């Protein structure tokens, strides 16, 4: 049955409506992609420097640490040579993690209007942040490659673990994000607490230094930081000595546990979150 009008287009009848429906999974994927694209487009269309900004931040930080450790302290022992490649190979993944978790504190609040008007499974509000920040991370990898070439860092066979590191980090980020995002809705102070914890975690993780630089007496503690294992996997691409399988296994187990906790927290709080926003 068609009803026609000159002001508006034809109305499809009920029978025609059905076939256009897609499976929930396809719809979720489609929405995730749309939101991720939106994030990137907003970021790059409103800034003249666009892509350059997303690599400027890690580059500037790398420059500062390089300056401090290599020129001021003349310390060669904090990491392996070339230090700039050593630094960037952990700093870029850290930027992904840091950006994701701090954005997750606002995952619900920033999109409140949209969440109140759509029924897409709410995990999308965390997953899209992990994905868009992840894409920025991958887009920044050529910078690492350029520095590796310029400073003569050699890529070895352990580079095959790079994708594994990305997968582990994505699991970890989704898990932590799903714990943080709903809780911040109820406890606003948590937003600041998370920022503090992230800053501490930056120095507590082997980013500006290597695991070897940690005194033997406390080294067994650093292994419980899942980032230790994940960062060692990334670094192994250039510095095979950094690969620490024990830390990697701990990282894998704790990431999966955190994901399970995150899913539980997320599901349990959803009803209350939707009322609150």
């Amino acid at each position: 049955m068609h009803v026609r009008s000159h002001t508006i287009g034809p109305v499809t009848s009920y029978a025609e409506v059905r076939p256009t429906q897609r499976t929930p999974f396809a719809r979720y994927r489609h929405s995730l992609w749309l939101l991720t694209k939106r994030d990137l487009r907003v970021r790059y269309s409103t800034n003249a420097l666009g892509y350059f900004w997303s690599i400027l931040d890690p580059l500037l930080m790398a420059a500062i640490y390089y300056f401090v450790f290599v020129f001021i302290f003349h310390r060669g022992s904090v990491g392996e040579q070339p230090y700039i490649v050593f630094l960037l190979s952990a700093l870029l993944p850290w930027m992904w993690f840091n950006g994701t978790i701090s954005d997750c504190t606002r995952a619900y609040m920033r999109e409140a209007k949209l969440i109140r008007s759509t029924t897409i499974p709410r995990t999308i509000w965390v997953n899209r942040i992990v994905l868009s920040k992840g894409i920025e991370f991958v887009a920044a990898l050529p910078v690492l490659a350029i520095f590796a070439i310029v400073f003569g860092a050699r890529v070895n066979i352990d580079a095959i673990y790079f994708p594994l590191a990305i997968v582990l980090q994505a699991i970890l980020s989704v898990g932590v994000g799903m714990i943080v995002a709903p809780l911040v809705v109820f406890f606003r102070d948590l937003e600041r607490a998370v920022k503090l914890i992230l800053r501490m975690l930056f120095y507590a993780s082997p980013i500006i230094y290597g695991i070897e630089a940690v005194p033997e007496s406390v080294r067994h503690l650093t292994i419980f930081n899942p980032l230790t294992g994940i960062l060692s996997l990334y670094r192994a691409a250039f510095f095979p000595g950094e690969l620490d399988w024990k830390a990697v296994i701990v990282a894998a187990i704790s990431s999966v546990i955190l994901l399970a906790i995150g899913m539980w927290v997320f599901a349990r709080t959803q009803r209350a979150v939707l009322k609150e926003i």
Partner: protein
Amino acid sequence: MADAAVIDVVDAGIRFKRNRRARRSFKDLFSSRRRRSRPDEFWALRHVDFSVERGEAIGVVGRNGQGKSTLLKLVAGVVISDEGKVNVHDGVAPLIEITGGFVDDLTVRDNVYLTAGLHGMSRRQIDDRFDEIIEFAEIGEFLDTPYKHLSSGMKVRIAFSVIARLEEPIILVDEVLAVGDKGFREKCYRRIEELLAGGRTLFFVSHNEKDLRRFCKRGLYLDKGELVLDGPIDEILTRYNADYGS
């Protein structure tokens, strides 16, 4: 299937905190939804029971704060009931917070693709309907203007025409149409009538008796969070007017 219910609401209830700043604890957050109500909470809706068949047009009547919008949100699935069940067996086009998906910094064109996509339309479907959406909203010259530079009337127009083009069998209309000029409102109403003629199911919240009578055959009368009366719209309005004068 012709008579199958598309919306089933069984003993549904939802409660909110009276005081948003009320003390909260981790224990509260994770406690079971079956727990007893606390003194600082109130039931916005409780023991609501009804079902809707395909193609029905239902008007929801009640004073402010009696749970009309909450009922609409429950059906839209944007809040979840604490008690009972709300089963919606078909896709929903919610004309609630219609401008919610729009992003200030993106152009009108990008926004149309984004919002329609988030509501489940594929790129090809949007391509097919894009011209109609723009024509309906009468903002053809502003296609590449950032959304934030539109007037508030234009914002509502484009948002309405996107949601009203969704190919969903159930339409929920909150009082969004109170905005916009008379001409556009009439156009929106004609659109809703077309959708109804096309076999859609309508859920309509309004304070305007004329609009309610125009679209709806059946009414739900909500008072103090309870469904007081479910019947033909004329009967509902008579009862409502008797209770509160008009």
